[in-house]
């Protein structure tokens, strides 16, 4: 795990344009180990664009992202430091849970694949369904498999893009508990959601995006209701 003193993700001057549309503009963000940064904002604020750039899935028009000291968009190795969990599971329905994880391990060039896969399956409670096709899984089980896939290579950074979508209450609780474990283990977590309450209690910091810019970057306030009022006023001004 990274040194808690120095930021693991450093994004500087991020800008992303789609033709004339400016999706992100002048975004600076540094996140250190053990932080869980909650990113909120209205539709079209640039949340998903920011996450895709931080994950290395999209290239910024301007600016750069360093992860663990490596330039994310210049060095493919830097992507190995990132785990990405979204509302989509990123797994193949026609492969079993074990095969999906073996494939992820091969892509990341991991050693001791079988032991790692078994450990990941145990950690998400899918050992008993490991040889069943992922297409037969419930939404909750699929998301557990997605967590196993995203954390299999032990990335210091876990990016979460609307990870609670479609999860029932027990599934959401289980995911929250897992995120606490990851945060306490020193992992960097950045979570985009349209509903702050989903991770409010476990977040350490809140970032509000509006019109592609950071409108607020502060430690998480204690009172969610007060934050909602502030947030609403930020959107109308």
């Amino acid at each position, binding site marked *: 795990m990274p040194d808690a003193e120095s930021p693991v993700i450093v994004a500087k001057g991020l800008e992303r344009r789609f033709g004339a549309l400016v999706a992100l503009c002048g975004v600076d963000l540094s996140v250190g180990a053990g932080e869980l940064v909650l990113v909120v904002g209205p539709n079209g604020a640039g949340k998903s664009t920011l996450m895709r750039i931080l994950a290395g899935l999209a290239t910024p028009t301007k600016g750069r992202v360093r992860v663990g000291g490596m330039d994310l968009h210049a060095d493919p190795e*830097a992507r190995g430091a990132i785990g990405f969990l979204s509302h989509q599971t990123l797994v*193949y329905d026609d492969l079993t849970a074990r095969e999906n994880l073996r494939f992820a391990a*091969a892509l990341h060039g991991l050693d001791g694949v079988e032991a790692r896969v078994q450990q990941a399956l145990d950690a998400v409670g899918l050992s008993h369904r490991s040889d069943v096709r992922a297409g037969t899984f419930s939404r909750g089980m699929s998301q557990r498999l997605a967590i196993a896939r995203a954390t299999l290579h032990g990335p210091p950074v876990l990016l979460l893009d609307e990870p609670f979508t479609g999860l029932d209450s027990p599934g959401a609780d289980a995911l929250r508990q897992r995120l606490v474990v990851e945060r306490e283990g020193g992992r960097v977590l950045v979570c985009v959601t349209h509903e702050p309450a989903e991770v409010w209690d476990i977040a350490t910091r809140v970032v509000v995006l509006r019109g592609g810019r950071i409108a607020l970057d502060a430690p998480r306030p204690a009172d969610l209701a007060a934050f909602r009022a502030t947030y609403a006023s930020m959107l109308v001004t």
Partner: protein
Amino acid sequence: MKTLRAALAIAAKDLRIEWRTKTALLTSTVFAALVFLIFVFSRDTGTLSLRELAPSVLWVTLALAVLTALNRAFLLERENGALEAILLAPVSRSAIFWGKWLANLGFVLIIEGVAFPLWILFFAVELRPILLLVALLALLAAIGFTAVGTVFSAMTVRTRFAELLLPVMLLPFMIPPLFFASQGTVRLFEGRPVADAVQWLKLLTLYDIAFLVIATMLFPKVMDE
């Protein structure tokens, strides 16, 4: 080493899924058989012999069957956003191209492996004296088809009309290997000197090398948003 391992993992994954579902292989081989039958029954038996028709029909049918198979290559990755998991891997984008290309080449060779006996059967073709050269033409054509096909299927997969766009974009680039393979086969059928067919084999080889290099360089740009 990491690139090679990732490429092989991608190819093995695609082939495993296809073996399990058999979607592309079954569709493409049934399609090839149907096209052969259509040509056999729709020709004017008085003016056009099966032997004259056979080489062109073989290559047109294979090109169309390959299109059907290539359509699936990246649509598979759209399922649950799986392509993103591959793009997140700490390997160069070229590894993804080589993996997908290897899998596509495997599909196309299987399709050819099924289509050739059907073609021999339907067109009463005597291939024995020229079998090796025709097989070589088939292999080289498959390499060319799949090199350009892999790039174009990656290019169209994020569009709304991927299934419609792919043939329109890909077919113009399939014309050269289709032409070279067809001309080579015609010459072998006519019993011309082997050197006549070899020049078409050379052209196919040149096309394959050129497009494998171009595709490897172009693919990362296609994958990056």
